[in-house]
Every structure is written in C-alpha cells, then in structure tokens.
C-alpha cells in the first residue's frame, strides 16, 4: 500500500515536457474557440418544413434559424401539444457554463506554468465530471420539455423525451440532434489534455531533496 501511494505521488510529480505544455496551450485555445460555435444542433424536418427548423445551442445562448424565427415556429407548433415554450432565459446553465470554461482555461494555463502531471490529472477529472454533468443536465432538460405537457393542450400525446443524439420521429417531424462544431472543440480539449499527460509519461519525477 505504502509503495502504491509512493508510486502515485511520484507519478503526479512528473514534470510536463515542452510538448505536453504546448498541448495544454492548444487545449486552452480550443476551449476558447468552442465559445464561438454552437455545441449542439437540433433540426426538425417535416414535409412543409423541407429545409428544417433549426435550433443551435451555444454554451451561453440559444440561436435559431431564420434570425430566430425558427424558435418561435417550434414554440408555436409545440403549443399544440402543450409543451412549455423554449426560452433562452430558462437555460440557467448558460450563465455558469462560460464561467466554467474560464476556469478550465485558467487550469490549463496553470498546468503550462506549474508543469506537473498532477495539474493534468486535476484538469481531466474535473472536465470529465463537467462533461458528464452537462450531458445529464441536457438530457434532463429534454426530458422535462417532453414530460411537463399542459393537459389542456389541443392535442394529447404520450410524454416523450426528444432525442439527445441521433434522430427520432415525433408526429410529422423527424428530429435530428447532433453535436456541432463547438462540441468538437470541447472533445479536442479533452483529447489534448490526455495527450499532454501521455507525452510526459516517461519523464522522471521531480523529487524534493529530503526525500532522496
């Protein structure tokens, strides 16, 4: 047991070489870039909406096709089944996600300056947690929209969960839901952190002198 802890401590003390640090810089850039692109795209296609109604979910805002008109149209159609209108103001996570991104960027840069394997591990674990939490949160939102239906609505349908990833058929609409450019930047962020760790695996741990 003692040996394992020792080994682990030594591992976390491994220095990050220049390539790893470069990866961390790149990761920070990717995360920054993800801010400018939608993370997710939801598209609803029906015979009379051949080009589809488009929703773009950013880390901090909700955008819709045709200057936002598509969101109005989606809400208008959803009122027939009693779904709550989708409003940007209801997405509280859009206020804290940019803050979280800022922290991740700072943590990446911290890794660049401090240059320890431990920084990479912290970053990766936190980011994985953040990612899983966000996806869960997203799923829960979709679940809520599809399950809190007004019983007085013109049309009664079985409660449903709009699909998070992939495509699904709801009445006359086919819903497509896929990650968009922003998500690829986030994936690149995660990947670059992993690579940063891997590239410095063979470095010798820096051990304080008294421990020698």
């Amino acid at each position, binding site marked *: 047991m003692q040996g394992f802890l020792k080994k682990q401590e030594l591992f976390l003390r491994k220095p990050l070489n220049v390539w790893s640090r470069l990866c961390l810089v790149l990761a920070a850039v990717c995360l920054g870039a993800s801010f400018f692109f939608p993370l997710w795209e939801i598209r609803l296609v029906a015979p009379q909406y051949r080009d589809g109604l488009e929703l773009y979910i950013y880390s901090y805002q909700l955008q819709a096709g*045709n200057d936002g*008109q598509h969101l*109005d*149209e989606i809400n*208008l159609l959803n009122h*027939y089944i009693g779904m709550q209108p989708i409003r940007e103001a209801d997405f509280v996570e859009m206020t804290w996600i940019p803050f979280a991104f800022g922290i991740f960027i700072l943590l990446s840069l911290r890794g660049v300056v401090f240059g320890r394997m431990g920084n990479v591990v912290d970053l990766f674990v936190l980011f994985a947690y953040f990612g899983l939490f966000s996806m869960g949160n997203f799923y829960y939102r979709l679940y809520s929209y599809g399950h809190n239906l007004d019983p007085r609505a*013109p049309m009664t349908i079985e409660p449903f969960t709009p699909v998070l990833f992939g495509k699904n058929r709801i009445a006359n609409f086919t819903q497509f839901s896929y990650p968009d450019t922003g998500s690829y930047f986030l994936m690149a962020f995660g990947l670059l952190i992993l690579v940063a760790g891997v590239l410095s695996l063979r470095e010798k741990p820096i051990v304080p002198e008294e421990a020698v």
Partner: protein
Amino acid sequence: MRFVPKSRFPRWIPLLATLPILGACAPDDVTRDNDRRSPAELSYVAPGDFDDYYLFYSGGHSGNVFVAGIPSMRHIVTIPVFTKYPGKGYGYDDVTKELLGDYTWGDIHHPALSKTDGLYDGRWLFVNDNAHNRVARIDLRDFKVKEILGPIPNTSGNHGSSFVTENTEYIMGGTRFSAPIPKGTYAHPEEYEDAFNGVITGIRVDPDTGDMSVGWQVLTPPFNWDLSSTGKGPSSGWAFFTSYNTEMAHTVLEANASQLDRDLGAAVNWRAAEQAVADGNYTEIDGVPVIDPAEVPGVMYFLPIAKSPHGMDTDPSGQWIVAGGKLDPTAGVYSFEKIQAAIEAEDFEDEKRGVPVLNFDSVLEGQVPVGLGPLHTQFDGRGNAYTSMFIDSQVAKWRLPPWSDEEKADLESVVVDKIDVHYNIGHLVVGGSDTREPYGNWLVAMNKHAVGRHIKVGPGIPETSQLIDITGDEMRMVKEAFTDKEPHFAQILRADKIDPIEVYPRAENEHPHAIWSFDDAEIVRNGDSVEVKMISIRSRFVPDIVDVRQGDTVTFHITNTEQTPGLTHGFGIGEMDISGNIDPGETKSFTVEMDKPGVFPFYCTVFCSALHQEMQGYISVRPAEETE
C-alpha cells in the same frame, strides 16, 4: 429468329451527344439547340421546379393582373388591382378600400415594368385603367398595389398607357375617347370637332418612392389616342403614339373613322414638354398644366400612319419605330433619324391645329407586307420583328432595316417566317422587347378567340395564350394556356431579376396599432367608436370575444404575428361583408358599423392549420335600447 447485331458504337457516344443539350438549359443560353427538344420537353417544368420567367398579364376588365410562369404557362397567382378580390382580402380593409375608391372595376390593358437605363429594374409594375382613367403601381417586392392615381383629369379612356420611359421618369398616357375638357363641361357630340379635345399625358414617377403624379398634358385634336411606346438611344426623350379617327367622327366610328387612308400618330418630345411646364408655357386645366403644342413648337409632331393603327413600337436600338394599320396589310417602319431630319428641314406635308404633320414619304423607311390586320410588334434584339395579325390569325417574323436595295424593292423578302395562332391575336409579347436588351427566346401570343380549343365551358369562353419558341430560324408553337378575360398585353421578367418577400419582417411593421404580444391585445372605447387591437396566430384570435353596442363604429386592427411563409390568416365576418387577409407580419384595419344587434361570428378564412376550423370568435352587439 433474327440476328440482332451489337452496336459498334461505344455506349458513351450518345451520352456525350446530350451534353450540349444539357448545357443549353440556362435561360440565356437557348440557341438553336432547343429546336431538337420536343415542345413538351421545352415547356415541362417538373413539380417542385421553378419557371425561368414571370409573365405579367393584364386581366382586362377583370381589373386584375395574372401572373404565370414561362415556359410552363402555369397561372401562379392573381394580383387584384381595380376590383375587390375576396380571395386575397383585397378591397375590404381600410387601406385597400380607400385605394379602390368608389369604382368596383377597372380595365387593365397594358402593364409596364419599371426601367433603369433602358432595362427592367424589377421595382414596379404599372398598369392602366382604360375605363376610369387610372394608373396603378404594383410593388414587385410583395406583388401588391401600393398606389392608384386618378381618375386623371381631362382624360376619358386612358388607353395609351402605361408605357414607361428609359429611367421610369414618366408613364405615358393618352385619351382614347376625346371629350370636352375639363370634365363636366357639356357639349353635344355633334359639336365634336370644335368642342372636344384629346390629351396626351405624362405621369411623373418619383424615382425613390415610385409615387405618381400627373406631370403635364399636351392638348390635341379629338383623335382617339390608342397606343404608345417610348424612345431610347437616339430617340431618348421622345414618345410615340398612334391614334385612329383622324376623321374626327363622333358616331358610327367603324365606318366614319375609317374613311382616310392614313391616321395621324404623334411624336412627342417629352423633355420639351417638361421644359415648357418649367418655363410656364401652359394653361392649367383641372389642376394639370396643359400645353398647347401650337403655342410651343417642338413638343409634338404628327406622323401619318396606315389606316387604323394600333401598336407603335420602338425597337431595342431606338432607331426604328414600327406601326401597322389594322386595315392595311403592312407594318410601317419609321426611321427616327429621318424624323429628326424632317423636323430640321421643316419637311411637313400639312398641319393640324398648328401642329406640323411630317412628310410621310420622308420619314418612312418602308412598309413591310406582313399580312392582314397587323396590330402590334415586338423585337428579339437580333434584328427581327414579330408582328401580330388579327385578321390572318398569324404572327409574322420579319427583319428590321437596314435593308439592301434589292430588299427595299421587294419588302416581301424580309418577311422570313409566319406561324398560325388560334385565333385572332391581339397583342404579343417578347420578354424585354421594350428594353435595350430583349431576352429574345419566348414569344407569347394573346389571342382573342379560343373557340374550339378547349373542353367546353359554356358560352363565356376564355382566351388563349400561346407560347412560341423564337430561338430558331422558324417559330415553333410550344404550349397553349387559357386565361380569364382578358389579357391585352403582358410583360415578361426574368425570375432571378427579383426576390420578393414572403413574410413582412416584424421590424418593418409601422402600423400604429400593431401588437405582438397577447398581453397588448385590448378593446378601447372612445364614445361610439371602438378600437380592437387583435392578434391572429395559429390557431386563434386574441381577443376572440368582442363586446360592443349597436351603433358603434368598430375598427379591428389585426396583426398576424406569424413570421412563417404561407401563414396568412383570414378575417371573415358573416353578414357584415368583410373578407380580410392578413399576411405574416402584417397589420390590417377593418372598420365596421355595428348597425344590427345580435351575435356575429368571425373566423379565419384561410386554411392555416389543423385547428383552422376552430379559429373563430364572436362579436356580440348589445341592442341600443339595452344600453344604459
């Protein structure tokens, strides 16, 4: 069993052979290759595909403009102009009611597209009303009437309209039925020659807004002014008019106005007319500056034209002006250069009321023997002219000057092709014929008599419109369509020249009573007048219960808050004679006098959604005696 030899040709040879045909699909690129395709292939536009051109037909005394597509000839939409049109809610809301005024119909003859630098600019379509002497402006951004000018003073039968100048400075007009002026002046028709007058009108168009106003009129003898065209290039600043009844007959015109061998057309220098007004050389009659051409030399010259002419058309170069006489089997070609020279040399054969008559032989380039009943001429921009012949039921294709001496000696030789049309063609149209650059690929013949051309529909038969391919050496009949009464003339516009909107952007709505949120819907009473601010959206009206009292004047301001193409909502009130249409993003006002007590349902007349049928409301009108 017979032996079938295998083809020696590799399979890709026929494949390659189709390439030039595929390459010829672009509208501008149609050449003789088109001739290899069958008429069905040429005019077939598959479901979901688009036509290449708009065809704006005049709807004659229906008071409408019909819009069709070329080459399919499918009728796409009707633009109501001078007539109530419940299908589009036209003439029921406060704005369109005021546009229409007191008249219930109009007689649209000649649509004209606005031009910039001698080319269609896709901004407006102007149409005339031959009956009530009006001109309307349709905005091609939303295909709706924005303005109706008139009745134009001193004009009775604004037939020679609406022909626009190179930069849409003016729309030309002419009085078809001369009358004493100003209107309201009494004279017996027997005093026709002395007491009646004709006028030619220049209608000014504001270059930014398109707003129309009567700029000036030129006083003429009581001829019947018929058709017009405007100059370009060398003839820039001029307009040309035909007339019949140079005899100045006032009764039995079919005989009495057909006695002379030649009628008098007019060449009008509209820049000189403009200058005369600026210089104060006019008399104001009924609010319009009227120029007497005898007093202001250089404004107008008469031009002898073969008996009973109709069209007077300037070619794309602006050098040749063609006018045929319906009772003379020729199309007369006038040279603008010669007209200028004759004016310069004062080479006049006569004068009428102080206006010089140009010497016929001096200004004429030649008379082309096209056939019987030449009525109207169009141009393809490749040096060819196409003249409709009412009596022969044909279109003649012939070559414009310059002609060789040999050809001049026998002008029959410049007539290169003829095609039968069915039957009794009036006008014909080639896209862009009145511009510097005609499209030159399609011709539409508008025929007056369709007898025997369609499955029977009772005595009120439609007219035929026939699409003719003019890209080859020989004209070819491609397609026939039927049109309600009554296309006189048409304009063709390349589809990609305009990009009309399909919703009114909310940001552009300037209606003072527009509302966008249910929270703003309200009913406001001010004495006996009630204003209802209402929203229409799938599938409800807000509010949908309107309480008023007998004797109230109620104005419904309805905003369609939709921004989705096609989501027009209707507003119909039974037994109150209201049929409104509110397009997406539009606000319309409907003023209704609540004369009768009772309960009046209103409903959406335009099928909008699965719950369209449920989109309804009630106006409950409390009887006057029950009111406190």
